[in-house]
């Protein structure tokens, strides 16, 4: 990613703001940007969602393929998540093969969904040992103004809830709604100016330190964690953001479940 010309000045500015409990765009420490979630927005996908958080905009599309199950799990389908950071979405994104950043995002989103058990892979079985569905979750950034992790996570679960298994097109029975039993939600925190904030924007990402991603399911069960970038954090800092995450995940789950 391209480095800003004056990262040290930006860091100093963000640190100075933090000492006064302020953020560059005027938000509170645990306050997210304005959020909108729409589903069923892509005509060629079997399920889709568009998420906008401030100037960050992403799409998620669900596609299905038939595959042969693994011999040791003859009645289970597959799940795959990919995140694409195309250069369309920001001047800092270079063209070329998938960057380590985009692979990390895809894998973190994947873990939250997979480990929450929101998709029972046995629901994806068509003929045991012969034919199962593979669910492919494609996250796609349109505009990256920071925190693609949460935007992708939210778009992915919203799109899954919106998805239909295309049985007729593949000649394996009727179309039916993809069973999605739970709503895992990811919340991300980044240390900016010496303290953690929720939903960092691009400026805070560039001038900040380590980030922590937490995916919570029903009853605050933890399904995935990820610490990224350089930096250290204490146990008490982690307790603080975990408490914030519990509250925010519940709010976001309500939004997704009401779509």
């Amino acid at each position, binding site marked *: 990613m391209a480095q800003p010309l004056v990262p040290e000045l930006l860091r100093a500015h963000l640190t100075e703001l933090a000492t006064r409990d302020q953020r560059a765009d005027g938000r509170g420490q645990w306050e997210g940007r304005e959020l909108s979630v729409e589903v069923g927005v892509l*005509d*060629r996908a079997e399920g889709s969602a568009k998420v906008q958080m401030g*100037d960050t905009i992403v*799409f998620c599309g669900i596609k299905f*393929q038939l595959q042969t199950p693994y011999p040791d799990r003859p009645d289970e389908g597959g799940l795959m998540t990919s995140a694409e950071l*195309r250069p369309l979405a920001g001047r800092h994104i270079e063209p070329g093969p998938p960057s380590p950043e985009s692979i990390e995002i895809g894998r973190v989103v994947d873990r939250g969904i997979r480990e929450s058990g929101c998709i029972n892979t046995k629901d994806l079985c068509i003929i045991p040992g012969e034919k199962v569905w593979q669910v492919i979750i*494609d996250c796609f950034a*349109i505009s990256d103004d920071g925190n693609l992790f949460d935007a992708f996570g939210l778009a992915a679960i919203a799109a899954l809830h919106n998805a239909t298994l295309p049985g007729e097109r593949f000649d394996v029975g009727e179309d039916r709604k993809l069973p999605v039993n739970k709503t895992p939600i990811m919340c991300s925190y980044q240390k900016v100016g010496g303290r953690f904030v929720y939903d960092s924007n691009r400026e805070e990402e560039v001038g900040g330190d380590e980030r922590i991603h937490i995916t919570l399911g029903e009853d605050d069960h933890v399904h995935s964690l990820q610490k990224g970038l350089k930096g250290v954090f204490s146990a008490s800092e982690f307790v603080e953001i975990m408490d914030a995450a519990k509250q925010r995940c519940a709010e976001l789950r309500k939004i997704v479940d009401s779509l």
Partner: protein
Amino acid sequence: MGYGDVQMIDENGNRIDGRKAGDIRPIEIEMGVVPVADGSASMRWGTNYVIASVYGPMEAHPRKIQRQERAVLDVRYNMAPFSTTDRFRPGFNRRSREISKVTADALESVVLLELYPRSKIRVEIEIICAEAGTRCVGLTAASLALADAGIPMTDMVVSVASGKINGVVVCDLNKEEDNYGAADLPMGVLPNTGELVFLQMDGDLSPSEFQEAWDYNMEAALKIHELMKEAIANKYGGAQ
């Protein structure tokens, strides 16, 4: 099933989506859809949905790509994995590479590159939803995004294709027509001069059919140009 086997036009000259031979699909344009870009635009054209963004002029690096007398235009056309009925495997392929090149060739013909020596202008075209004629939608959307970025051009580029189904020449093929069509003639027109900056063709057209397809494209380009001017005026004001 070969082309010609499927009836796509009825005896009254109505196409399967109700259009007449010379009609284009509905078009919706939105400017500035990528807030972090220097310029951007989206086009919904039939069920095509295409987003284009522009970054620059910016420093051209590595330095070996710099041109002393003008800017370089770096154009990428790409299809999103969920843009097609069967998932499109991400990554560059020969088709995308060719379309990126001919799109760049078309845009280089109108952008005043000599105003920005040693710099680079990035044009990114993403096909979010593909129906038929994505290269035309991509090129047209790219010229809107360049205008949104305030990059000087001698003219907009309006791109549209005509083709032939069941022996009848028709304008702006939809998905079914494209699947069974017998010819495809995409063109990129400069609406103010009537000149061309983009031209491809494949299939089989007689000289009179070719002329008919050419005329449909010219006529459609002027209609689409009106929609483009309207979208730009809606965002920036000014006389229409």
